[in-house]
């Protein structure tokens, strides 16, 4: 290590500045902690900004009968009962208050006739439940939290990537990273850390996710000894753009269906009648994604290999008002006017239900002082997430993790950062510049995306998953010889060498978990095991590092208390 080193010290360090990270930061600050917030991009650009349809919260503004019990039941049903029931309960109970809080911080949701927050229908939700702002709810959420946080005095470290968590024995002591702009290294001392880094969509070829979605937080936590939970559950959103090729995978909000959009195949049939006649287009995402996939595979796909999604029966002004970014997105990128004709849509890798295993109340992982929230954490969504439950997840569990991390920091002592660990982290980052032979990371990344797309996609088989594990092994020696060109100044090729290693590591966790789970449940569909299996329905897959090796084990799902079982049994 070359002293002197830039070092910052906080009580709580938060990695990731999307909805969960910002909400955690605001809460930790409110608890009196000194808070640092590190993010890979500029502030306000995190993936939350892309969330479109809304925030699920049982406020009952439109459907008066809605309550937390119904939201809880919908979430558990959508997750095929593999959810952490306590998280599902807390989420349903606390979401309305978290939404009201946003409004009190300046957010402006669409309104009902009587001046309340308007709510719309969405897949898997019994009632009209999604609080929204047209189709740009995520932007409203992130901007509100960003302004609140900055005004409250969070230290923000923008365009900074954390590459290593530093430990003191079993406990968290801080983190090591680099400034993306200048390439200089930087240390953070912290008594507790909250990981809020999102998912791993960039490991698939067709994805709605941005470059940031490289599983960093999951990899950091795993390497620090934390457990990962149910990594096989990857959500393929049913409706991404399919044409033209450059825009493939870009999200088409579920709000199109929430506002009455219909799905048709090339024969003009509303094919959801076959797959879920009761809920039709507003079935859960796993079901709709498989339906579109099946229609295409059986030769009934749209011109460019998708399905037709049509909202043109609604008045043009209404479509432009409620779905403005969809209108512009199709008009500008695909030459399609959605007020007069159908869109072409197909599945796109969208969300990770699995992630860091955390305590329901506090968001603490199995490593003392290490917390996680949002998409990086697991449990709430079980085998499949309902649309709208992500933004509410960020708020509910971001706040909880921020509080718990601040509480933890109050009683924890500060540790010195271990020089050997820092040196190793620095060496890892400098190595790609020392190599003159070897590949640049881009090609390895393309190969990873290709086989994750074709072998660990919507439908899975033993043979494909075995093959994927073989492909992952083949990537490892290539990863060890990656090189970077040029200087350390804002060098995306260099940045990708580290991000790619996280992606490959966590892709292996996904593939191994998918291989182990011999049943179909929610987003995990095995052609060779097409049905629910009762034994698997009662256990979680856990990935953890033991003796330097990735190991997989099963652990029983915890027993639900009687009063929650009663809620599930009610037939609404």
């Amino acid at each position, binding site marked *: 290590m070359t002293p002197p080193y830039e070092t910052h010290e906080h009580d709580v360090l938060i990695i990731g500045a999307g909805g969960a990270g910002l909400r955690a930061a605001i809460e930790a600050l409110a608890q009196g902690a000194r808070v640092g917030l590190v993010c890979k*991009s*500029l*502030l306000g*650009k*995190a993936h939350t*900004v*892309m969330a479109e349809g809304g925030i699920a919260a049982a406020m009952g503004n439109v459907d008066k009968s809605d309550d937390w019990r119904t939201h809880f039941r919908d979430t558990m049903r959508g997750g095929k009962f593999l959810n952490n029931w306590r998280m599902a309960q807390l989420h349903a109970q606390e979401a309305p208050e978290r939404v009201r809080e946003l409004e009190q*911080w*300046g957010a*402006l949701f669409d*309104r009902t006739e009587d*001046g309340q927050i308007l709510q719309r229908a969405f897949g898997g939700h019994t009632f009209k439940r999604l609080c929204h702002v*047209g189709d*740009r709810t*995520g*932007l*409203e959420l992130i901007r509100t939290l960003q*302004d609140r946080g*900055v*005004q409250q005095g969070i230290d*923000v470290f*923008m365009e900074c990537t954390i590459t290593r968590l530093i430990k003191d024995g079993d406990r968290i002591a801080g983190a090591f990273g680099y400034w993306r*702009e200048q390439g200089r290294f930087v240390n953070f001392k912290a008594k507790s850390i909250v990981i809020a880094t999102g998912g791993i969509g960039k490991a698939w*070829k067709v994805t709605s996710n*941005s*470059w940031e979605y490289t599983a960093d937080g999951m990899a950091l936590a795993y390497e620090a000894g934390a457990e990962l939970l149910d990594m096989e559950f990857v959500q393929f959103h049913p409706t991404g753009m399919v*044409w*033209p*090729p*450059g825009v*493939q995978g*870009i*999200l088409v909000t579920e709000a199109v269906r929430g506002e009455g959009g219909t799905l048709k195949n090339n024969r003009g049939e509303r094919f959801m009648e076959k797959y879920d006649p009761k809920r039709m287009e507003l079935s859960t995402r796993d079901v709709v994604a498989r339906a579109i996939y099946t229609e*295409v595979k059986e030769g009934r796909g749209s011109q*460019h*290999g998708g399905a037709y999604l049509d909202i043109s029966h609604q008045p043009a002004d209404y479509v432009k008002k409620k779905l403005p*970014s969809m209108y*512009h997105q199709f008009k*500008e*990128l695909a030459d399609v006017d959605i007020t007069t004709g159908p869109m072409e849509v*197909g599945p796109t890798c969208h969300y990770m239900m699995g992630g860091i295993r955390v305590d329901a109340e506090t968001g603490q992982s199995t490593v003392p002082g290490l917390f996680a929230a949002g998409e990086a954490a697991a449990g709430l969504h079980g085998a499949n997430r309902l649309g709208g439950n992500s933004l509410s997840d960020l708020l509910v569990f971001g706040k909880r993790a921020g509080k718990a991390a601040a509480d933890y920091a109050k009683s924890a002592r500060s540790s010195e950062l271990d020089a050997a660990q820092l040196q190793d982290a620095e060496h890892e980052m400098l190595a790609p510049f020392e190599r003159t032979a070897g590949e*640049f*990371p*881009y*090609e390895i990344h*393309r190969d990873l995306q290709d086989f994750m*797309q*074709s072998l660990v*996609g919507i*439908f*899975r*088989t033993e043979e494909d998953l075995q093959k994927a594990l073989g492909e992952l092994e083949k990537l490892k020696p290539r990863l060890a010889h990656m090189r*970077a*060109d*040029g*200087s350390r*100044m*804002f060098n*995306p*090729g260099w940045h990708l060498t580290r991000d790619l290693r996280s992606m490959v590591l966590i892709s292996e966790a996904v593939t191994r978990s998918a291989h182990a789970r011999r049943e179909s449940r929610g987003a995990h569909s095995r052609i060779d095991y097409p049905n629910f299996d009762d034994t698997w329905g009662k256990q979680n897959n856990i990935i953890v590092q033991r003796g330097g090796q990735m190991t997989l084990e099963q652990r029983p799902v915890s027993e639900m208390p009687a009063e929650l079982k009663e809620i599930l049994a009610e037939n609404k």
Partner: protein
Amino acid sequence: MPDLTDNDAMETGATNEAVLRVFRGGPEDGKPVDYRVPVAPGMVVLDALHSIQGHQAPDLAVRWNCKAGKCGSCSAEVNGRPRLTCKTRLDSLPLDQPITVSPLKAFPLIKDLVTDVSWNYKINKKIPAFQPKPGVEWKMFQRDVDRVQEFRKCIECFLCQDVCHVLRDHSKHQSFGGPRFFVRTACLEMHPLDGLSRTKLLKDELGLGLCNITKCCTEVCPEEIHITDNAIIPLKERIVDEFYDPITMLIRKFRGA
């Protein structure tokens, strides 16, 4: 399993080639460099930049996130015009000549297409946050929030800042906030339940008076916010009402304020 979307037309569907003349390097040594890129249907400038990164120049610095026009990260000047590169289609540009891609001019260059936009975040900090009127009832009607929702569409791409001649040509970064932050202040000032006044800040610190309403900002806004007509002009009127209205001035004079 067959790949449902196995049409990697970035390579296979390519019909012709484009030349991108991309600014490479830093403030001292930077210069345009030409790259030939295969063109696929519907391709945008950002796709072409990614193709260059992935095949020719791994260290090409470019900011981007969503590639869907929602985050405002990938701003650059394409053929001299401030644009989001993710929304600028190659087939909208003349491909018989090189497409120039340069960094935003109103901010200090870091490297290639990346500039130091931290100044914007400093200006933002000066603006007092939303503060509800005391004892307010949390009820708002759509007709009252419509105009504020227009401003809240802003994705902070800073194209309006880049094109504004007060910043771009006169470098008044010390005394001027720029269109983005007039829009943000308008958001707060026109929020139906906000109880603060930010007109003094607009007049004294954000230099709203320096804007001579040439509407360049409105023209480049990818969200089609009517920056000049709906945000800047009404704010200018508020300043006039509050500070230059002859009757108010007279009352102030008598009160010795």
